[in-house]
């Protein structure tokens, strides 16, 4: 209890002082009207969530994110396992991956609009494309960190390919996969909001753009705060998951024993 207080008192104190300062400067008119008082933003957040106008957009954003993120993770794990375990597949695809990965994914937005229009389909395709790359790279990294001795041992015991995959490769690759999941979960949310902002017809990003265009300043900030909260929750949840997975991983245990 005491540890919790000493841990959270300084950051909370800082935030409270900062918000109080903005509140005073905004109410006294020192700040331009485009920077509203935090209390007004909080009020807008509660009001818009309660009357459904923001909560329905939140639901759309989270649903889009979840579907696209799940597809990206599944796709990248399959491709990553294929590339990581079959040398021919790796040789055939690695140059293509190196070429496509540094390309900024958002530059594909016009292409996605062209093929899929402005609806949910376009958004999901864009998010899958963006979130696929970090997931793939981390999966590959995990698969390639498999101990060759363990693989040889499995082969000597006559373990089948599928069993080796399930009992040797996958467990060793899990920390890489967990890192990939955390990184691409955050990226997927960022891209979800981005695509909604540029070309969406719903979602938090769309709400922010609409609020800006109709000069509903406090609701705009409220939606930005909400998107930050969602991002923080997603990141915290997957970081926890990663800690759990990495905890028992052989490579981490070995590093812990060595150092």
């Amino acid at each position, binding site marked *: 209890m005491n540890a919790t207080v000493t841990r959270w008192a300084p950051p909370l104190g800082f935030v409270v002082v900062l918000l109080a300062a903005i509140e005073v400067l905004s109410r006294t008119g020192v700040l331009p009207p*485009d920077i509203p008082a935090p209390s007004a933003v909080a009020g807008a957040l509660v009001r818009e969530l309660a009357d459904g106008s923001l909560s329905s957009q939140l639901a759309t954003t989270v649903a889009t994110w979840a579907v696209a993120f799940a597809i990206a993770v599944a796709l990248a794990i399959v491709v990553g396992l294929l590339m990581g375990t079959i040398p021919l597949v790796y040789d055939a695809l690695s*140059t*293509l991956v190196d070429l496509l990965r540094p*390309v900024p994914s958002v530059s594909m937005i*016009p292409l996605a609009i062209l093929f899929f229009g402005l609806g949910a389909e376009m958004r999901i395709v864009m998010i899958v494309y963006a979130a696929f790359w970090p997931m793939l790279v981390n999966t590959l990294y995990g698969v390639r960190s498999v101990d060759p001795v363990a693989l040889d041992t499995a082969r000597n015991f006559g373990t089948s390919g599928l069993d080796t995959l399930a009992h040797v490769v996958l467990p060793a690759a899990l920390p890489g996969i967990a890192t990939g999941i955390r990184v691409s979960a955050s990226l997927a949310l960022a891209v979800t909001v*981005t695509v909604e902002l*540029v070309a969406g017809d719903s979602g938090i*990003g769309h709400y922010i753009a609409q609020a*800006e265009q109709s000069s509903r300043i406090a609701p705009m900030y409220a939606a930005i705060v909400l998107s930050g909260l969602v991002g923080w929750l997603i990141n915290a949840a997957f970081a926890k998951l990663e800690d759990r997975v990495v905890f028992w991983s052989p490579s981490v245990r070995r590093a812990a024993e060595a150092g």
Partner: protein
Amino acid sequence: MRARRLLGLATIVVLLLAWEVTARVGNNVYVPPPSQIAVTFAHEWFSPQFAQEAVPSIWRLLAGFIIAAIVGVALGVAIGVSDTLYRTLDPVLQVLRALPPTAVIPVGILLLGIGDWMKVAVIVFGAIWPILVNSVDGARSVSSERLDTARNFGFSRLETIVAVTFPSALPQIFAGLRVGLALAFIMIVISEMVGGSNGLGYAILSAQRTFSIPEMYAGIVLLAILGYGLNALFTLLERRVLAWHLGSTAVTR
């Protein structure tokens, strides 16, 4: 080794050929053949249009990224070496880092209009968090042996930060800078799409809206080349700067 590289290149050649053939046979206006995109690319971008659309994007991107790098590293190291600052600000940084960065672009437009400085400002805001967080972590993970040695040699606090903490934190600082560069790229493209009258993001989106399909593809190709090129330059810089580090850790291993 050479055979493996050839296989990788062969995949790309086969994909491009398949695209070329299907595009020519299918005659779909949305999918022009790569050869036509290449011709449009040469026509569009080896022209004064490069100065009009690409150069503004590049300078805004570099200006925003460099400001984010300088401010992020300086603040990050400062926060990392001070326990009080770290305990006060780190949780705040973690929350700000989780904010989808493009969500602030409308705020940028509201406060700064749709000019160059709005774009530079939102790039700084988008790119700075991973740089900050990694600089903080890097500065905090300096080994106590190094700090003790510096103290025994009578280094002042500032000397220790400049000569010991900062170099030790560099590998992690570069990891943050790499993520920051990728975010800077997203911010420039999106800020030009949402609030722009020129720039590559604006150019490709308006090409799509006016159904100038080959031009749209050519613009995406240019963005891809820029993304790839900047990433390669960054890797080169990283190898140079960290050469001593990679070497020294290899020896101790």
